[in-house]
């Protein structure tokens, strides 16, 4: 351990002295210097006067955005395809198999290019946008959606919604206890909906709708206002989702198949309906097999998101290890920081998934 630390320290010291010898600036002072370039998608306020430290944050958040969205979408799509592959319907099962074999066997970079250059580039120019009414526009420069803007009374609405969510959680816990004691079931789903919607609807009516929409409109050369989803994000997200889903589908299938059919038959013999067999018997046991492999896929997805640079999505690699690196020339510091970020993101994801896995395993015993 000590040896390793010393080793890296020596490498670092050696690199520093060489840089100095060659007259190359080093250190982290550049993080507080003005960056002076624009970024097309920023989740936090950013302008040309912001610092390189800020560009780091902007890039980091863009990476996290596409990774989190990718993980959610890939999990949903992948589970769906995995289950479809086991369907007793011949057509559905074969279509799912076809999907898996196509997308997991093509290089991801090629898929990114396909979505960006072949699919999204064939959309029309802003003046001839595809649209639904005047609230959704689709053209080569992005998807434009209306943005909700809060009016007075909005806070009240949010507060009521939060209280409702707590209420639903309490209901679920209470219903479970009641079922354990008396064996009687409550119709949880309709009750939860009622708790969520009714109070909110009352508040909405009293305050007269405490929010309004800001629509995107074509002003000058481009659409302004509303929410813009840039095509670079859409293409990257599509590619990551479709590719990772094909791998997740196989993991889900292997998980389900790993549960012995005797378990399903026993559950059926007890008179459980099909839906409950899946939810209470098959899925919990399949999870044991699925979670560790799923973790690897999530980690891969996060790392693969760095392909963003190939199509101009402003992720950490493009913005910080790209433009910032080139403007400051401080390659060692910037690459080290970027590597540190991916390491941290992946270790965090891995830690969360391992905890979840441990919980599932302990439930089994």
């Amino acid at each position, binding site marked *: 351990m000590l040896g390793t630390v010393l080793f890296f320290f020596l*490498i670092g010291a050696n690199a520093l002295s060489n840089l100095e010898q060659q007259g190359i600036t080093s250190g982290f002072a550049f993080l507080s210097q003005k960056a002076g370039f624009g970024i097309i998608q920023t989740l936090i306020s950013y302008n040309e006067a912001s610092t390189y430290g800020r560009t780091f944050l902007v890039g980091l958040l863009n990476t996290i955005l596409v990774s989190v969205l990718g993980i959610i979408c890939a999990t949903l799509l992948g589970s769906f395809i995995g289950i479809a592959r086991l369907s007793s319907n011949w057509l559905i099962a074969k279509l799912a198999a076809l999907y898996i074999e196509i997308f997991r066997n093509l290089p991801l970079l090629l898929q990114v290019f396909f979505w960006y250059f072949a699919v999204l580039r064939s959309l029309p120019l802003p003046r001839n946008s595809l649209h639904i009414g005047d609230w959704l526009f689709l053209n080569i*420069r992005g998807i434009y959606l209306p943005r909700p803007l809060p009016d007075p009374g909005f806070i009240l609405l949010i507060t009521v919604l939060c209280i409702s969510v707590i209420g639903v959680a309490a209901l679920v816990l209470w219903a479970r206890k009641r079922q354990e004691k008396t064996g009687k079931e409550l119709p949880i789903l309709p009750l939860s909906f009622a708790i969520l919607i009714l109070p909110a609807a009352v508040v909405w009516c009293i305050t007269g709708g405490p929010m309004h929409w800001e629509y995107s409109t074509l002003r000058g050369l481009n659409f302004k206002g509303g929410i813009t989803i840039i095509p670079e994000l859409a293409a990257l997200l599509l590619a990551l989702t479709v590719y990772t889903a094909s791998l997740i589908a196989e993991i889900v299938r292997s998980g389900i198949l790993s549960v012995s059919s005797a378990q399903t038959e026993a559950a059926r013999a007890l008179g459980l309906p099909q839906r409950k067999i899946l939810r209470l018997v098959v899925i919990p046991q399949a999870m044991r097999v699925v979670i560790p492999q799923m973790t690897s896929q999530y980690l891969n997805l996060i790392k693969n998101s760095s392909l963003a640079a190939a199509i101009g999505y402003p992720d950490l690699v493009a913005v910080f290890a790209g433009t910032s690196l080139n403007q400051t020339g401080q390659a060692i510091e910037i690459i080290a920081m970027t590597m540190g970020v991916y390491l941290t993101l992946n270790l965090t994801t891995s830690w969360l998934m391992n905890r979840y896995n441990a919980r599932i395993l302990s439930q089994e015993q």
Partner: protein
Amino acid sequence: MKKYSIRAIICMIACLLIISVPPVIAGTLDEVKKRGTLVCGVSTGLPGFSATDEKGNWKGLDVDGCRAIAAAVFGDANKVKYAPLNAKERFTALQSGEIDVLVRGTTWTKQRDTALGLNFAGVNYYDGQGFMVPKKLGINSAKELDGAIFCIHAGTTSELNLADYFAKHNMTYEAVVFDTHDQAAKGFDAGRCDCLTADQSQLYALRTHLRKPYEAVILKDIISKEPLGPVVRQGDDAWFNVVRWSFFAMINADELGVTSANVNAMRSRSVNPAIRRLVGLDGDRGKSLNLPDDWSYQIIKQVGNYAESFRRNVGSGSALKIDRGLNALWKDGGLQYAPPMR
């Protein structure tokens, strides 16, 4: 446990011995001579400056810069190995010694000259950042570009100039940043952005790659100074001199009217002392540069003077048809000026 730590210590000492030896950077000139080829960093493909033709040969104004150095060192302009680099890779490639010289439309700025351990050996093209827009937008001036989306090549001074220009004029913009010139041009071609911005010479070059080049116009506005030139590592003055004077020889030949076609005749007949020094008949010749005596003659013979190179690659003899403009000789109202060869 004890055994382990002894092994670790031995390993550490060994590592220490290996890594604490500073990299010995011998003179680049000697290294190039020993290797027998010049490794020259160029662009990944920018017509007129550095791009491959149908036969796979590198052609362009920047490529001629590489060829001139090879002609001076080896007496053979073809002894060059080209390393195509994107904007993000170029400085690291030079700093690490992967290439001997970078001739890749690189803008000379204070930060690059002082903080990166590099030196600019001259300016082989005086450029400025411009804008290209589709004709059908009907835009005549950069001031009408408020709210526009721009396609840019990542890691260039263009990104910063654009931000400065829009801040100065209190206008807004968005920038889609691509990895190479070509991708940025394709993005513009597909309509992802309203405007392509880059050094103006590059816009002329990229326009030839569009599906319908005549449907795009290059605006007159120039928003920055972009002196482009060859770059070498700092602290190797002998090599710096070779690169710098290879280029000056081409400018001086242009000024004295010595071309690849007439250099032989001039060499045997001319009585003009300046020409006699240029073609290696009089004076110190190659001695102080540690080059063969006919180094400048070989440059002119094999590559040509600056005017020839300009005309052939980017000027009237090329598809780009760029005027000499700022790149005319000083006596013709331009900025190209070389110190005398004496």
